[in-house]
């Protein structure tokens, strides 16, 4: 086992998996993450987006989960899913942002069901998100609660990719707001979507990823390692 494998995301996966009982998380952790040397052309990712009641995982709740797979340079819509999560909370004012109403939340699925589906879809794939830190933090809290251990994944962040494109190609400091998902999409002429539905945002992120990879070109985005470099 190489140094990177021991201490990189996959090493963390190995260490965590022995401490978890059989179940969705264990099944997920049993499969290695894609190697850093995987060519972008055959890389499998899962674009993920959460809608939440707020930004603090310790206080706020996950309301919906949307994801769609990416294989190489194609978004595979057949794998697209969205779950509204049943939560014992008032959605309150946040409904104006994500459009998930109290009624929808009451009719949603249990968090365990949504997590099992997400972990299964993410198995053997890289997690793709716009500002991936938020999804990871929520996942860590949720996994601790449901399975007793934190979460691990290999991730690619389209916000970071956009920051690299903007600073290297255009200027040093990105202006306020220009790295947001919909502003970034507009730079590539990607269609406007009604933002803030978990699946729509996941699809929006996946399409942005295709555009970013094309923009970098094979010279700057040949393997997963190139996409994860800071």
């Amino acid at each position: 086992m190489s140094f990177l494998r021991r201490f990189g995301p996959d090493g963390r996966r190995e260490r965590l998996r022995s401490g978890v009982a059989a179940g969705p998380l264990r099944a997920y952790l049993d499969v290695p993450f894609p190697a850093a040397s995987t060519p972008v052309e055959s890389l499998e990712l899962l674009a993920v987006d959460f809608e939440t009641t707020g930004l603090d995982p310790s206080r706020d709740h996950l309301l919906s989960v949307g994801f769609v797979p990416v294989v190489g340079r194609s978004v595979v819509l057949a794998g697209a899913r969205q779950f509204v999560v049943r939560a014992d909370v008032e959605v309150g004012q946040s409904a104006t942002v994500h459009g998930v109403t109290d009624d929808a939340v009451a009719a949603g699925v249990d968090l365990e069901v949504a997590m099992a589906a997400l972990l299964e879809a993410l198995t053997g794939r890289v997690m793709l998100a716009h500002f991936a830190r938020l999804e990871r933090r929520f996942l860590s809290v949720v996994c601790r609660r449901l399975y007793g251990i934190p979460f691990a994944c290999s991730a690619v962040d389209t916000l970071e990719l956009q920051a690299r494109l903007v600073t290297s190609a255009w200027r040093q400091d990105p202006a306020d707001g220009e790295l947001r998902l919909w502003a970034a999409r507009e730079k590539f002429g990607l269609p406007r979507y009604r933002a803030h539905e978990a699946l729509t945002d996941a699809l929006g992120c996946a399409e942005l990823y295709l555009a970013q990879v094309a923009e970098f070109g094979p010279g700057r985005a040949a393997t997963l390692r190139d996409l994860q470099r800071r």
Partner: protein
Amino acid sequence: MDTELTEVRDFLAATPPFDLLPAGVLDGIPARLLVRYYRRGATILAPGDRSDALYVIRSGAVDLVDGQGALLDRRDVGAGFGMSTLLRGGDFKNYITAIEDTLVLYLPGDVFRELVAQEPEFEAFYRSRIRARMRAAVESVQATDRGVPILKTPVRELVRRPPLSAPPTTSIRAAAQLMSLGGVSSLLVMDEGRLVGIVTDRDLRNRVIAPGVDLALPVSTVMTSDPVTAPADALAFELFFDMAARNIHHVPVMRGAEVLGVLSSSDLARLQHDNPVLLVGEIRRQSTIDGLVASSQRIPELVTQLVSEDVTAHQIGRVVTTVGDAIERRQIEMVEAEMGRPPVPYCWVVLGSQARHEQGLSSDQDNAIILSDAYRPERPEHAEYFAELARRMVAGLAACGYPVCKGDVMATNAAWRVPLGVWRRTFSEWMTTPHADALVNASIFFDMRALHGDSGLFEALREDVLAQAPSSERMLAHLTKSAVEHQPPLGFFRGFVLEKAGEHAAKLDLKGGGVAALVELARVYALENGLPDVNTRGRLEATAAIGRLSERRAAELTDALEFVSYVRLRHQVRQHRAGVAPDNFVSPSELTDEERRHLKDVFQIIRRAQATLAARRPLHYVS
């Protein structure tokens, strides 16, 4: 679980032909798609590619370019590509290049084939022949059901009873008694089943009673011999125009040699009142130029009314031309009445769109005079009479709203006011030693029709020309070259007209890019086959009838002409309503998406016919 990809579904629901799919089928499609992205400049497909998918552009735009690098089409959001290999099989033949960053929805071949197999409207969108689409387009523009019966009714439907007839030897008295018993105002004179003449109430008054003719004489002595007849499928309005123009009141309707019945001008009363026939009648009764000017000012309103009703552009062309003919004929009668009898016989001919029965709202006047060979230019009473007649006619027509011809193809031009012999020589020169310049201007003279005077002069000239034209290879080659030089645009792109070289024009030239090309193609067909027809549709049909043009292509071209002419008329009517002088330049924003698609078919039909013609008549020896 919720798998609805609303953004993708809503996009497809607004994109032909997916918009035609039942909701249940549409809902299932997004989950079977892939999404792909191409940077500006990327080649998406190239010749030889084995593509098995329909690509639908979600954002961005692509160029379709053939193997030689010629731009074939430019497509943007909602348009597809890749279907040709899906339908035909085999390799992709052209290049598809992203001209902007482009996001596509990739519909795998098996999904496409499933939709084609199960959804007839989806299949029709991709598989329908251009001819069927054109036919549907022509029908769709006349979707209103506020029909004008007179303009659509064949004369056979107006015939109410079999004709009353008598042999030529019948006495005048017996003939009158037959008419009286039958309660009819006319009697056909038939000799062994063959129509030889007609007698009317008016004939009995004018030719029998007033002169005091012996009533025992055979009716053949007072009948009108070889009367004007109409074929059973002639349209009522054409017949009535003709009757008004010739000032006749009874016309036998024939199916071959059989007489179905007689139509009288009073049958007209059974048809609706508000129609162009009445305008022609009014024109015939005008006795001053001012009166004609007043009548002519009603033409735009007439066209406006016709366009808003269920009438074809072909019929409107005939109606407008017939009204124009009536004005011109009435005018020349008035001018002759003022100037006295002409010193030698002559024929006043009309040219161009008027000759072709295709006048619209922006037509110039084009006319000429064929003088009898008895004309002596050195005799002032000859020369001055016709110069003055031409001057008065051209001025009068201009007052009636027919602008003077920019190319000076008018009888006021001494070159176009010459004896038959000179005309023959001129045509002969055009046909044997055509210089490109001379012929471009001359092509209008091949669309010629006698309007007034000694039509024998015109017939003689036409016979000559038609006999010589089919073997005039150089002339035909020049006319072909000119016909294929009108390059229709490729289509439309984002509110612009996409020209062949990829430029974007703000407006579509319906004449140069459509009507003129069709007119010139049909003219070549007619001349190379020595056909006398001048109407473009008539030329196409006549060429098909002798097997020199496939029925399919003739039908395509006829429908293309009808569609583009209709769009032109509608555009001109809108301009007239807005108080703007009518022209031929339509902005793509005036057209619906569907009309833009149909016009694209029109352009393609024209290009195909041009390619066939150019291949058949090599242009290499035309400088």
